[in-house]
């Protein structure tokens, strides 16, 4: 039997991986494994064949390529125009520092045995023998900060929930990954779902919570299917339930599906949605750590934050802290998206520069034209010009240039992009997605879009830009959450770095 790996990842499937898999599975002597993606997304569907020398990669493979690949000796790792050599030797992959994504694409995502064989559950086993305080302390030591975008120190959150007295506490995973340009949560839930389950159980142990929910967006049907299956198997295998791995400690985990609202990625809005309500933002305080889901103490974390936890427990907080720079410790799965030649996932320690990611890993634009800008950190992130791309990707350095790392998404634009159109889109998106609770966001987004339309039409450009500046100040200072509060970031960064795009309609 020759093992052939064909990803079940959304990208691979959207490009025909199911058809390739079906064709190869029909061949005698072939065992098809549906793995996660390695994150070399421009090469999907990436087919790998297990050989005595290691796994040999081919890509991108379409159904029509299968016959010629077989004729070229695919099953022995034979040479072919689509052959990429040994997977592990591909530069894009070789130059990464994979901690969280170490298993993604390597293992069979749904096989718990495979998970354990590749180091899975060693963090949990350690945690099961520790006191909750020591688990939270280990997370504190690691310096881990929330990977969803807010970058709040995780250890402080854990200690707050742990210290809160209540009959019921919760761990809630925010898998409402709505930022355009980000797909790390999706990839790990499809490619290594037990990692998230393990991270959530440890979080339960470290905070005294016996129940968890994963809030997943509905736009991720593959992640839903894979994670549901993993949950079911985790119960069967005794990883979840009344007695985690037979220790007598209970942890229950449920999947909850959203219904298409970007704002539900904001933690308090997510909690309201999880209570069956409109996903409206709550005023803080009270902090969710003290009064969260159903009014009970709740640890809310992004997928990637929770997926960093098993490594932190297995290798120690100090090990994790050794990666990164300054107060930005550990690794970050950066995501190269948009108009990029080599799009995909790059897990690196904090401190890699934006240019290394965009030019080194990404290889510039897909169209081959000059890079005009990178929007970093989703729809609420800044548009960054090439002149600033030597900035290291860490929370502090990005703050200094008026930007944020966010969830690590990087959307690349070539020189045909119109930044005034992008700035207007930022307001339009905010108007569409605002929960409506606070006035600066609800009204400000609509007014912003109107005024930006006047700028684009060349109507009193300078006067209207001044008005936008004023409006952005109100939204920044007066909004209840980051939706209204950070919409000015893409708008103002576009105006500051690409003024010509806004002045071109100017008739004066």
């Amino acid at each position: 039997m020759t093992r052939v790996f064909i990803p079940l990842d959304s990208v691979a499937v959207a490009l025909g991986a199911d058809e390739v898999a079906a064709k190869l599975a029909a061949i005698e002597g072939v065992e098809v494994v549906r793995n996660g993606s390695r994150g070399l997304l421009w090469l999907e569907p990436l087919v790998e064949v297990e050989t005595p020398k290691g796994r040999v990669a081919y890509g991108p493979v379409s159904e029509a390529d299968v016959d010629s690949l077989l004729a070229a000796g695919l099953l022995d790792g034979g040479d072919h125009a689509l052959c990429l050599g040994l997977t592990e030797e591909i530069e894009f992959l070789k130059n990464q520092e994979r901690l969280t994504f170490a298993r993604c694409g390597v293992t069979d995502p749904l096989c718990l045995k495979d998970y354990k064989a590749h180091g899975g559950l060693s963090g949990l086993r350690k945690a099961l023998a520790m006191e909750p305080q020591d688990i939270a302390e280990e997370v504190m030591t690691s310096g881990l900060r929330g990977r969803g975008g807010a970058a709040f120190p995780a250890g402080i959150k854990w200690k707050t929930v742990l210290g809160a007295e209540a009959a019921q506490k919760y761990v809630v995973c925010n898998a409402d990954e709505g930022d355009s340009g980000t797909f790390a949560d999706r990839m790990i839930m499809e490619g290594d779902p037990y990692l998230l389950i393990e991270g959530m159980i440890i979080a339960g142990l470290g905070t005294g919570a016996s129940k968890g929910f994963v809030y997943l967006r509905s736009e991720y049907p593959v992640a839903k299917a894979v994670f549901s299956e993993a949950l079911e198997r985790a119960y069967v295998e005794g990883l979840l339930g009344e007695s985690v791995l037979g220790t007598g400690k209970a942890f229950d985990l449920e999947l909850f599906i959203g219904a298409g609202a970007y704002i539900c990625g904001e933690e308090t809005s997510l909690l309201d949605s999880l209570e069956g309500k409109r996903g409206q933002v709550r005023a803080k305080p009270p902090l969710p750590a003290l009064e969260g889901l159903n009014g009970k103490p709740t640890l809310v974390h992004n997928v990637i934050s929770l997926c960093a936890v098993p490594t932190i427990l297995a290798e120690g907080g100090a090990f994790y802290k050794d990666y990164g720079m300054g107060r930005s410790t550990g690794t970050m799965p950066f995501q190269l998206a948009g108009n990029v030649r080599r799009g995909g996932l790059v897990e690196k320690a904090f401190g890699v520069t934006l240019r290394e990611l965009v030019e080194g890993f990404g290889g510039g634009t897909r169209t081959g034209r000059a890079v005009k800008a990178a929007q970093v950190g989703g729809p609420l992130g800044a548009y960054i010009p090439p002149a600033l791309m030597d900035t290291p990707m860490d929370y502090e350095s990005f703050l200094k240039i008026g930007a944020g790392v966010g969830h690590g998404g990087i959307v690349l634009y070539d020189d045909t992009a119109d930044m005034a159109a992008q700035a207007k889109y930022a307001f339009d998106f905010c108007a569409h997605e605002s929960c409506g609770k606070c006035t600066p966001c609800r009204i400000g987004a609509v007014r912003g879009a109107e005024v930006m339309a006047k700028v684009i039409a060349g109507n009193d450009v300078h006067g209207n830009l001044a008005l936008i500046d004023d409006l952005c100040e109100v939204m920044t200072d007066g909004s209840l959450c980051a939706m209204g509060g950070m919409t000015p970031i893409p708008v103002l960064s576009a105006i500051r770095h690409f003024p010509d795009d806004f002045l071109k309609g100017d008739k004066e």
Partner: protein
Amino acid sequence: MREGLEVTDAKAQTIGAMDALIAKYVDAQGGLMRALIALNDAYGYIDASALPRLATAFNITKAEVKGVISFYDDFARAPKGEHVLRLCQAEACQAVGSRELTAHACKKADVEMGETRADGRITIEPVYCLGLCANGPAAMVDGKLRARVSEADIDALLQAWEHEA
């Protein structure tokens, strides 16, 4: 008379099925959301007749139920077309031509963005990110993910739909 009775029976049956569906989620965490998703999945939209039944089941007002339905993009309040094309409108797809692709698709299908064509065959909707951001423009075609969608892909798709029996 006979025909009218049949209609009533069918309606009663649907309401019975609706109630059974709703009842499954009454005690669940976030039950109203789950019930709405289940109704939306089962019928393709949430009929106005479900509102009083949801309100009774969850012991809230009809206005509250309506407020939840209107908040979320996924909840449809009228049936959609036989085929649904969702085109990503977010930044990563914009960077690779989703605006032009969207204009092309709407023109070819002869339907406005977010609308269902008068003959009920095709709906084109915006979607804000399918997580295929390195391989845009992205789309969801009758629930299936598609990446690197070209104008030619759209043409082929629409042609296949138009030529269905």
